[in-house]
């Protein structure tokens, strides 16, 4: 089974061009960290309530990203809230997207292509080799959005993460999504940790965009 981080990154790969949607968007950077927190929550490494994150299990999982994040968290007892953790992890500048892409390449889902545009500019693409995993993610998200039942918590989390990054457009058209806006908002609110992560992404993104430019 793919991790939440891998599913989130896979969702961002354009199935026709192999290029990444919303790459380098600030919100996406925060969302990648959010995806790691979802992975840690689903594997019971961490838990949250309305206030703080609690670390439950620091034993090695075998997943290098999870173990690195947990080790970082263990060393910083002063950081407690989801928002502060997302900000702290963002400052580390880890290439979570690159690591997830490398893992997807290794698993035979994507291939990595590097070309030059105008002989100078590097262009990276990640065409799908095996489209089944991406198709399954999109189908699950569509079912969560357009169905009326209670989705799997994993799919609830993915909807909540994809929404602020504009990635639900990979699943349905704007008018279709507009018709289900209420349902998307309801799902994004349902899981305590995803609600906290989405609120943090929105706040941090807004505070960064409204920050005065630095004078050099």
């Amino acid at each position, binding site marked *: 089974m793919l991790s939440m981080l891998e599913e989130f990154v896979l969702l961002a790969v354009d199935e026709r061009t192999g290029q990444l949607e919303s790459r380098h968007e600030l919100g996406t950077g925060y969302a990648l960290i959010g995806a790691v927190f979802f992975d840690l*929550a689903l594997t*019971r490494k961490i*838990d*949250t*309530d*309305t206030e703080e994150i*609690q670390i*439950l299990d620091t034993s090695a999982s075998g997943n290098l990203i999870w173990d690195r994040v947990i080790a970082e968290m263990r060393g910083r007892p002063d950081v407690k809230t989801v928002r502060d953790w997302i900000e702290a992890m963002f400052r580390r500048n880890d290439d979570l997207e690159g690591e997830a892409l490398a893992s997807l390449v290794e698993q035979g889902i994507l291939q990595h292509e590097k070309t030059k545009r105008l002989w100078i500019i590097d262009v990276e693409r990640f065409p799908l080799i095996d489209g089944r995993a991406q198709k399954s993610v999109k189908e699950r998200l569509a079912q969560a959005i357009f169905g009326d*039942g*209670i*989705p*799997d*918590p994993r799919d*609830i989390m993915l909807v909540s993460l994809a929404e602020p990054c504009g990635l639900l457009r990979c699943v349905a058209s704007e008018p279709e999504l507009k018709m289900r806006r209420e349902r998307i908002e*309801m799902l994004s*609110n*349902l*899981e*305590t*940790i995803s*609600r906290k992560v989405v609120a943090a992404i929105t706040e941090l993104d807004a505070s960064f965009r409204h920050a005065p430019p630095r004078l050099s």
Partner: protein
Amino acid sequence: MIELAQQTRGGWCVVTIRGRADAEAADEMERALRAAVNQNHRVAADFANVDYISSAGLRAVLQAGRAAQERKTEFTVCQLRGPVKKVFEISGMQHVLRIEEELPC
């Protein structure tokens, strides 16, 4: 630490939960609720004595609700109190689960 008990009253299987519904208790709570949902037509989860619920605890209730939907079992969460009630309200759980002030039986 959580305590779980189950009894049948007036055609309802009542699962009584006591203590903290946190990550440590979530699996046990989910198992008990799912088992009740799988074996009965009407299940009430009594939260009167739950004083804390975390993200993992809430997820366990959601999973039980999903299982109930799949099996077409009537499932209701009852007697939420204080901070636990607030967490359910903030999450909007009333949109996907039937939530009652009192037990239905």
